[in-house]
C-alpha cells in the first residue's frame, strides 16, 4: 500500500516551518516495551511509521529490554533495579525517549525516581531520564507539535472508543493528547465511552492473582465499549489492550482492538502496515 510521508497540509506546513525557523528534526529513541516487542510487533511498526510520517527521526537501541515494572509492581525492587539500570544506560544519550505505553512510560518517568531515591549514584541518571521520557502521543502532540498524525486516508472508516489507561492518565497525566490526535485522523470518528476513566481490571499480576475481581472490571469495560457503539477500541497501552482483546476474542465480539498508533496509521485489526 502506498504511503504518504505525512498528511499533505501538515507536510506543507512542516516544510514552511523548516524554511522559517529551520528546526532540527526531533530525534526519538524508541523504548518499544517488552510486550510490544514480544507479542505485538505490528504495533511497534505503526509507532515507527507514524513517528516518521510526522518528521521524527527514529532510532531503536537494540540492547533495550523490559523496564522492570512487573517486578516493581510486585514488590521485587532488587530485581526491578537490575532492569532499570540497564534501561538507564541504554537511553543515557537519547534526546527523547518515546514509549508507546502509559504504564511503562510511568515507570521510566515516575517510578525510577522512587526506585533510586536513596541511591545518590543512580538518582541523577533517573532524574535525567525522567525529563526526557514521553509517551508516544504526548511526544507527538506536545514535543513535535503535530496536529494531525493520521495516515491512510484510504484506510477503513472507524468509530473509535478511546480508553484512557490508568497510568497514562494518573501517573503521566496525559489526558488530551491521544484524543486530539485521534480526532484529527481521517476517517476516524470518536465515540463516547461511558465511564471511560474506570480501570479495565488488568493491573499486571492482579489479573491472575485476583481473576474474579479483574474479570468483573473487564466485563464492565466491555459493556461500556459495546454501549459506545464503537467498532474499534483503542488505548495507549498494550497491557490493557491485551486484557480487553482477551475478552473481545473470547466472546467473539465485532470490535477491533488497536493501539492508538495503529488507528493513526490506518492499520486494520492485527495487521501491520
Amino acid at each position: 500500500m502506498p504511503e504518504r510521508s505525512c498528511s499533505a497540509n501538515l507536510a506543507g506546513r512542516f516544510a514552511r516551518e523548516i524554511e522559517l525557523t529551520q528546526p532540527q528534526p526531533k530525534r526519538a529513541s524508541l523504548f518499544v516495551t517488552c510486550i510490544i516487542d514480544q507479542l505485538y510487533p505490528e504495533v511497534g511498526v505503526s509507532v515507527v511509521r507514524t513517528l516518521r510520517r510526522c518528521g521524527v527521526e527514529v532510532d531503536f537501541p537494540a540492547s533495550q529490554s523490559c523496564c522492570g515494572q512487573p517486578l516493581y509492581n510486585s514488590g521485587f525492587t532488587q530485581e526491578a533495579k537490575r532492569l532499570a539500570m540497564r534501561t538507564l544506560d541504554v537511553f543515557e544519550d537519547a534526546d527523547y525517549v518515546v514509549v508507546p505505553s502509559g504504564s511503562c512510560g510511568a515507570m521510566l518517568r515516575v517510578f525510577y525516581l522512587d526506585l533510586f531515591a536513596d541511591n545518590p549514584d543512580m538518582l541523577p541518571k533517573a532524574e535525567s531520564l525522567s525529563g526526557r521520557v514521553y509517551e508516544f502521543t504526548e511526544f507527538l502532540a506536545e514535543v513535535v507539535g503535530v496536529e494531525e498524525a493520521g495516515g491512510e486516508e484510504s484506510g477503513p472508516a472507524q468509530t473509535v472508543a478511546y480508553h484512557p489507561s490508568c497510568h497514562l492518565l494518573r501517573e503521566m497525566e496525559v489526558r488530551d493528547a491521544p484524543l486530539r490526535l485521534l480526532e484529527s485522523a481521517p476517517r476516524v470518528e470518536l465515540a463516547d465511552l461511558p465511564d471511560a476513566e474506570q480501570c479495565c481490571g488488568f493491573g499486571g499480576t492482579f489479573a491472575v492473582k485476583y481473576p474474579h475481581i479483574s474479570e468483573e472490571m473487564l466485563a464492565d469495560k466491555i459493556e461500556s465499549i459495546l454501549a459506545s457503539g464503537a467498532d474499534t477500541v483503542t488505548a495507549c497501552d498494550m497491557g490493557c489492550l491485551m486484557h480487553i482483546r482477551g475478552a473481545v476474542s473470547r466472546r467473539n465480539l465485532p470490535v477491533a482492538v488497536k493501539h492508538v498508533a495503529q488507528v493513526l496509521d490506518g492499520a486494520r485489526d492485527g495487521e501491520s502496515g
Partner: protein
Amino acid sequence: MAEVATREFVPASQAAVQDTQLRQALRRAGSGFDGTRREAIAEVTPEVWEGWREQARRIKEHTIAHLDYYLAMLEKNVTAAGGRVHFAADAQQANAIVSEIARNAGVRTVTKSKSMVSEELGLNHVLEALGIDVFETDLGEYIIQLAEETPSHLVAPALHKTRGQVAQLFAEKLGVPYSDDIEEMARVARIVLRQKFLDADMGVSGANFLVAETGSLVIITNEGNGRLCTSAPRIHVGLAGMEKVIPSLQDLAVFLRLLPRSATGQRITSYMSMVTGPRRPGDEDGPEEFHLVIVDNGRSRLLQDPALRESLYCIRCGACLNVCPVYQRIGGHAYGWVYPGPIGSIVTPGLVGVAQAKDLPNASTLCGACRDACPVQINIPRMLLHLRHQQAESSDYNQRTASDTDALLARGFASVMSSPWLLKLGRAASRAMAGPLAKDGKIGQSRLPLLSRWTRARDLPIPPARTFRDVWRDELSRGRG
C-alpha cells in the same frame, strides 16, 4: 479488638462478586456518592479545590511530624477545660479505660454516635459483657448493630443493605410491621432511639478532629444523634485515634470544607459539634464528666515508617472507596476488618500486622483513582507498592509473605529480560508450548495452573514468529518504514 478476618480475603471477595444484591447496593452508592462529590467540587474552581487540598495536606504533615507536641498541648487544654485525657497503647487498654469509667459511674445504658475507632476496639461487646446496654444511634450503625454485622463503608456503614433487608430486620428485631418505606423506617428508629437518648447515663462518640489549641473534640454529623449523645447523658466519652489532632481552631475551616464534599458531596453537613470539656457551672445542660481516650493501637507503626506515615493524614471521608474499582466490586466486608477500601489496605496491615493481611496490598490495580479523589492527597498507590516491597524483600522475616514461587518467578523474569540469549530461548520454548494449546492463533480456556487464571475469561495471544526487534533489524532500521 474487633475480629480480624483479613486472611479470608480471597474466598470472601469471591463470594462478594457473586452477590447480586450487594452489587446493586454498591453500584447505587458508588455512583451516588461519587456523582455528588464531583458536582460539589465542580462548584468551586479547580484552583480553589486544589488550594484547599494542599492546605489540608500541609496542616496534617505538620501536625503528624510534631504529634507528640500537639498531643501534649491537647492534653493540657482538655484538662484545663475540666476534662480528662486517657492514653491507650492498644485496644485492650482502651476498652479497659472505658469500662472503668462506666463501672465507676454505675452506668447502665450507653448511647453511641458513630465511631470507627470503637469498631476497631470492639468496644460494644466489652461493655455488653459488663451488663451494660449499648445502643448505636447513627441510623446506619443502628442497622448493622441489629443485624450483628460490621460496617462496610467508612461513612455509610449499612451501605451493603437494601431497603428490603432493613425492613425485614426492623420487623424481626423491633417487632414493627414490615414496611420498606425509607421515611417510615427512619421514623421507627427515631422513636426507638429517642427514649434511649434520654435514658442513657453515658454517651460515646468518635472524633473527626481534635483541636490542640482549645482542647476541643469536633464531630460532624447529619442526623443529630451526635448532638444528643454528647449533650444528654451525664458522662461523655470521646474516642479518637491519636492522629486526629490539628493545631489550631483556624485549621478547622479547611477541613469543614473538604470533608463533607468528599464524603457525601454535601457542601456542609447538618451539624458540627465542638465539645470542650464537661458542662461549665451555670450551663443548662451537658455532661458532668468528659473523657477523651486517645488510642494508638498500631498507629505508631504507621508513624514510624516514613513511607506509610501519610496514611495517618486520612480524614476517613470514604472518597477513595467510592472511586475504587475493587471496592466497588467486592464491598467492604471482604477486606476482613474495620477499615475497607484503598486506605484500609494500608491501615489494616499496619494495625493488625502485615502478615495477617497479605492480600490487601496486592488486591489493587494501582489505577490511582483513590489518590486523585483524596482530599488530603494521600498517595495510596505508592504505599501499596511499599507494602508489596516489604512483603517481597523485607529484612524482617515476619513481613516477608510473598510466596517462594513469586520470588522465583521474579528472579527468573529479571534474568530472562536481562539476557538476550535467555529471552530467545524462553521465547522459543513458549512458542513451542503454545503450539499445542493454541487454536485460531490464540490460547483459549486452559487448565494449566497459572495459565488458567488468565484464560478463565480471556484469550491469550501466542507470540508471533518475529519480534519487533527482528522487524526493526530486517526492515525498519534501513529505511523509512
